[in-house]
């Protein structure tokens, strides 16, 4: 497996943990942060972060 693919696979696992794991329980509560509900904020931010990291991994290439 190429390094890029390995990193993306690792990112996949991280995303799995972020979005479909008991970790969700930590943010699954009716609270707000900076005026925004926590869970949507967490999900969208996490989602954006995963995409950004994927972009970065691909951009960096196999170094």
């Amino acid at each position, binding site marked *: *497996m190429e390094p*890029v*693919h390995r990193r*993306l*696979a690792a*990112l*996949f696992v991280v*995303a*799995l943990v972020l*979005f*479909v794991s008991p970790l*969700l*329980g930590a943010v*699954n*509560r*009716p609270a*707000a942060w900076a*005026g*925004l*509900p*926590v*869970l*949507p904020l967490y*999900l*969208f931010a996490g*989602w*954006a972060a*995963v*995409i*950004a990291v*994927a*972009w970065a991994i*691909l951009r960096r290439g196999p170094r």
Partner: protein
Amino acid sequence: MSLTVWAALLGTLYVGGLFAIAHVAERSRRAGVSPVDNAWVYCLSLAVYCTSWTFYGSVGRAASQGLGFLPIYLGPTLVFLLAPTVLRRLVAFCRAEGVTSVPDLLEALYGKGQALGMLATDILVIGITPYIALQLKAVGHTFDLLTGRPPGETVWGDAALWAALGFAAFSILFGARTLVATERHEGMVAAVAFESAVKLVVFLALGGWVVWSLGGGLGTVFQRALERPDLGRLFVLGAGGGTTVPEWVTLTVLSAGAVVLLPRQFHMLAVESVRDEHLGPATWGFPAYLLAINLLVLPVALVGILHQTAGSPDYFLISLPLDQGRTDLAFLAFIGGFSAATSMVIVASVALSTMILHHIVTPLLLVQWEGKDLSRVLLHAKRLVILAVVLLGYGFHRWIGESHTLVNIGLLSFSAVTQFVPAVFLGLYWKGATRAGALTGLSLGFALWVYTLLLPSFSESGWVPRSFLEHGPWGVELLKPRALLGLVGLDPWSHFLVWSLVFNLGSFVGVSLLTAGRPRPDRHVQSVGGWLTREDVGDLLTRFVGSAKATQVVASLPGRTSPQALLEAAERCLAGAVGTASARAIVQSFLAWPRERAVEILDVFGGVSRTLAESRETLERRLRELVVLHDASQALSRSLDIDRALAEVLRLIHQEFGFDHLAVRLLEPSGKLGIRCHVGLGEEYVALSAVPPSADTYFGTCFLEGRPVVVEDTREATKLILFQHLARDVPVTAFLHAPMLHEGRSIGVLTAYATRGPMHFTDEFVNLFAALANQLGLAVVNARLYAEVQAYSQAMEEKVKLRTTELEQVNARLRELDRLKTEFLSTVSHELRTPLTSIRSFSEILLRYDVQNPERRRGFLRIIQTEAERLTRMINDLLDLSKIEAGRLEFLPTALDGRACLAAAVELARPVLAERGGSATLEVEADLPPLWADGDRLRQVLANLLSNAAKFSPEGGVVRVKGRRRGAYLLVSVADQGPGIPRHRLHEVFERYTQVRDPQKSHPLGTGLGLAISREIITHLGGRIWVESELGAGTTFFFTVPLVDQDGRR
């Protein structure tokens, strides 16, 4: 103008715009620039994932279930992180195999048969049709919502129908341009990418307007929402009827599978993929698109709820602007939703029609296929199927009416598609996966889908009794479709997913393990030992994809493509047109066509080998070569009989190389090159092909030029004069002539005819064949020499035998002659002694005794004279005979008077006859012309005959002499009244030294030469002499002498 007209116009214009974009894209592609060969276009085309369900339904779901809409997009995000690895492998596999759809993929993965593909196609058609219906429903509903008119009661008044027809037209034009589905549809992809851009921009623009213009900004919207206790449940999972955590996970899993395996996704992902590298940017680009289009879903839903917008939350995007009087924005929203629906329907209908064509229509067509050209039929069928798929969706939309919300239908389709995940991905990655496992898993999964999702949803709509849902079929609680085997506490999707894991994945793995060990059938048709020409492949492809595409495919192959590669290219192209399973079936039946287009490479000795295994193989082949040559030379040396030797060698070639038809032609003495010995040829051809060698025939060319002539494919043969006769009996597809050379000269031709299709004869094989031919030539020459020697010795033997017989005969004759001569000598000496004795005794008497009586003395002297005369006559006879024998007897023929001759002879004989009291008569025909003969000799003959007659006449007998004219001859007969000659001795009469003695008289009456001399004389005179006799009645001698003719000469 009313809003209806505007909306219809807008929709029409929009679809028109799509046509224009597609058209431009196609033109550009034809010009050589692919407008879709771009990673961003690829990402946008993948966004066909976002349908009107996303555009309208997400808002609705957010409004009712909070964050429950998100897993639908998180799943794809997760999967696409694996795009460069897992998906790339999938795409590469599909590209390599010419796979065009998920059923095709399964057939490619699990080999032989149509069942799996058919099942998969059925599942997908059943699973996706509601989804298409959903899109049409959205279009129709939003149209009515926008124009404010009541929902169209009639079919013709239903905007969804017209939209459906427009979509179908687009799909047919740009999605079924050619039959080959692996070929990309640039126009369609460009249009879909454009639509994805449109729906994203529209959603963001409208969302922005809704949130910031209506809602007062993101912060404000959330703040107001958080203040509402009833809305708090929307921000957490598992609270108050919202999405639960298990459902969250389930939806993520379902969507992760669906984003790859939904027909439209698979089509865009694998089939329309221009290059694998585009998957890299798609890893984050596509999720980014999904993130962007979802950013404002929740706020928009909140604004809709906060503004207490009327109507279904599904259509907030249209109803909100309409509430605010912003018809223009509502139109914009309609266009966004319309885009989403359009792209989904177009791509899904093309994808579904492809799989229906490949797995249902083509197998049916192929049942009756007899090699006919199906390219047009198939293309029309594909277009019809597209129309049918869209109309089926429309029909379903009319049927379900308003009973389902958008999201439920969408998830139903997702669930159906998820059933393919184990078969596809385990098939790609797990070597132990078997066809039986895939079939079982898929069947059970589908049954589960029908039972736990489809039927309950029908039940909710009232088409199936509600008791089925609440109490299970026949009241069996364990069978309750949403609490199967007592599994309760889960939402329907999770319940379904859990049981899917058991039924589908479980049975798939279980059955695979049970049936493991059976290797998966070969994916490709193997042309073992066979090969094809480019023309064959072109010909085959033309029947399915039309000549233009076929030519293009064949032309794209490199110059020296191996038969296997040709076959694979053909299979790949066909797979694109009719699916992998059908393609395999076609190629197989093509290889088995009666004319046996596929052929064998008769490679007896491979080329230079690189590996050890190869060299061993080569060694074996060399060994085989040597064995064949050895056997051949043994067969040849064993027998010097040409035909047996030839038959033996032909049998050997037949046995070793499998040629069923062989011939040996030899140059015949007549100058014709005829078949001397053959295997499996017709007699008629054998007779016909015996012609002098000429350049008009292949074997003639071979003979004249003294070099092998190879025709590897008789369809390319040009010298057809005799070939047609041959082909009548034997379906010759290739042949090889090798000259039989001896001392640099052709003496014949050895031929092998192949019937198993065109054949490639390697140089090594041709050389071996030529060597065999030369050996045959040598054997023939040897056999011929041997035959010549034998014939000569036989002729000599016969000659010797003949000579020996002749010599024996001569010898016997000589001995007989010797005996006769001895006898003759004794006879002659006896005969001579008789008169000598008389003469001596009478002369002694006269000398010793004084014979006084003069009369007595005269008597004695007369006796002495008579005896002396007799002696003289005898000696004359002997002299004559020796002259005759020496050929020195002279004849002086003159014209004679026959009557005078005869009369003179008779007068001379009278005294002798008178001595015994006999007499002679003479009758001669009057007016006889003169004879042409030697008078002295004729008189001698007559004297002989008369003295014979006198000798044998009894006392007082009469001798009759007659002379008659008989033609140009005088026939003379001399008849006596003697005892006659026995019949069996008649032929001896004229022989020399023979005397037909009178049995009663023991002493001879002459030398026995008289008749022999007479015969010689008569023969010399040109006549004939013979005798007729009757015992006791006398003997008649006849002879002829020529008469003088008109000229006075003979």
